[in-house]
């Protein structure tokens, strides 16, 4: 009797896990389809020509050989962020075929989340008319041509992410700006509401919130949304006055 109940619970749990996993993947695939770079995009034809010549995303050498700027995977996400002189105004985020699927997920799941998160931020900025404070790059998922194929035994990636390049200030300068009193209370207040409403879990650090040369804050890590925000992460990066004000804003969180 007891064993039977345990068995039923286990079966239900297994079916639920499988369904949940399948749903997530299905959702991501549907999202990818809706965010694919369209044929009429200004660089689509040029990208096709570039990626049809060779398996550009195979390894670091093939990437370099295709003309992309040398780049090494980022520390935590192992993501490669690169540029190509023939595609000014765009940056490329990708994983190589010789790399593992990050966090045991197909790369398109991450691309879909990034585009979706960016769209949510963009909508919020428009609704709240805070475009003077914030901006978010446009992003498109580019499907790699079916040929040339990735050689056998590696982990083929089918999609890369193409993003609009933002004119960001240098990293050191950005940190200094965040630490200064040039950031007003209005900016912090708008930032607080935006991050809280979208649920941008892990974006509250200068590296993920760089200033553009126009003085706007750019949201460049849009992957994690709809989550509990780690508000306190921003505190050490602010000036004393701003720390005080930020603590006041987040006191209930």
């Amino acid at each position: 009797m007891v064993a039977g109940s345990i068995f039923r619970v286990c079966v239900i749990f297994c079916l639920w896990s499988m369904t949940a996993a399948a749903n997530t993947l299905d959702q991501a695939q549907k999202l990818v389809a809706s965010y694919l770079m369209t044929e009429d995009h200004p660089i689509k034809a040029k990208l096709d020509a570039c990626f049809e010549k060779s398996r550009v995303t195979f390894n670091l050498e093939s990437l370099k050989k295709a003309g992309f700027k040398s780049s090494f995977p980022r520390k935590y996400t192992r993501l490669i962020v690169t540029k190509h002189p023939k595609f000014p105004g765009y940056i490329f985020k990708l994983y190589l075929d010789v790399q593992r699927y990050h966090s045991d997920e197909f790369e398109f799941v991450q691309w879909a989340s990034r585009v979706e998160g960016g769209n949510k931020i963009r909508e919020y900025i428009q609704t709240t008319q805070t475009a003077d404070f914030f901006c978010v790059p446009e992003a498109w998922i580019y499907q790699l041509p079916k040929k040339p194929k990735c050689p056998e035994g590696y982990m083929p990636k089918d999609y890369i992410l193409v993003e609009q390049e933002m004119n960001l200030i240098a990293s050191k300068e950005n940190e200094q700006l965040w630490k200064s009193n040039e950031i007003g209370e209005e900016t912090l207040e708008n930032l607080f509401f935006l991050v809280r409403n979208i649920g941008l879990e892990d974006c509250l650090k200068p590296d993920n919130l760089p200033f553009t040369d126009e003085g706007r804050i750019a949201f460049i890590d849009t992957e994690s949304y709809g989550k509990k925000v780690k508000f306190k992460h921003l505190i050490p990066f602010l000036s004393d006055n701003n720390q005080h004000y930020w603590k006041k804003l987040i006191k209930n969180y």
Partner: protein
Amino acid sequence: MRAVFPFSLNIIVFSKSSRSAISSNMRLLHLILLLLTATLEAVTTQPHHTTAFIGQPGELDTLISYSHYNTNHFWNKSGNLVPRYNHFYRQACTLYAEYAIWCADSVTFDGGYDFIRERLDGNTFGFEDFELGWKHQVYSTETAALTTQLIALIPGGKKRCSLRYARPGFQAGILYSDQYSRGWYDLGLGYRFYQGFPSDQIVAEGALGYDLLSCLQFVASIQLEYGLFNGQSNKNFNNIVFNPNYRLLNGKLELNYRLMKHVTFVAGGFQHLWGRNSGSGGGFFGGSWIDF
């Protein structure tokens, strides 16, 4: 690319000497040596072989070891050796222990903590899956033994790429060991069953030991993990290193130096000789057997 060497070692031959009553002081000394060795060696892949011999009742044999493995190539499904373009390094600290419950039965433990570095995928570290085993000697003579072995494969945590499958399973096998004038040999054959992935495996091993001196022994061994390719690859799509359907033949050479009655140092090298969906390359290891 798994560099698992669940072979036997002649330690049992060394430790066949009757379990003399070890004074508490000696036990303490051994414990200190064990810890000291662990600290000094800090980190070699499991350099033990599974022998059919069982120690004296109450005897505990332990092996602490460090191994280093690296490769930048792998055998694909067709058996072609291809570059990986993503250099793989692993350092493993392992503990193997075998406790003789009665004269014909012993229990074994095998576990390790790994530090893995992949050039493009970063660092991974954590516990490997653990193995808990039971050996039962079914036949023995003065110099030979035939033993059955059952091993439970216990996940060491959640699945982590390049580190552990985190799938439960078990292995059933048979071991035969024999001594000859200046040495010994171990043979083993088993079937390893995993739940889902990796695929089931036929495991076979062979080790040959030769006494160069009374305190120095040379050991050559091979081990085969022959995957039956029935693993659910869709459940573990994400790895060159830990492909769910792999085959691997390892070769290993080592020297064992008996420092004192209950302490033996082990050092050697290993090389992956053949495979499918597994890493090539090799490495070295060092460790010490201490019996209580």
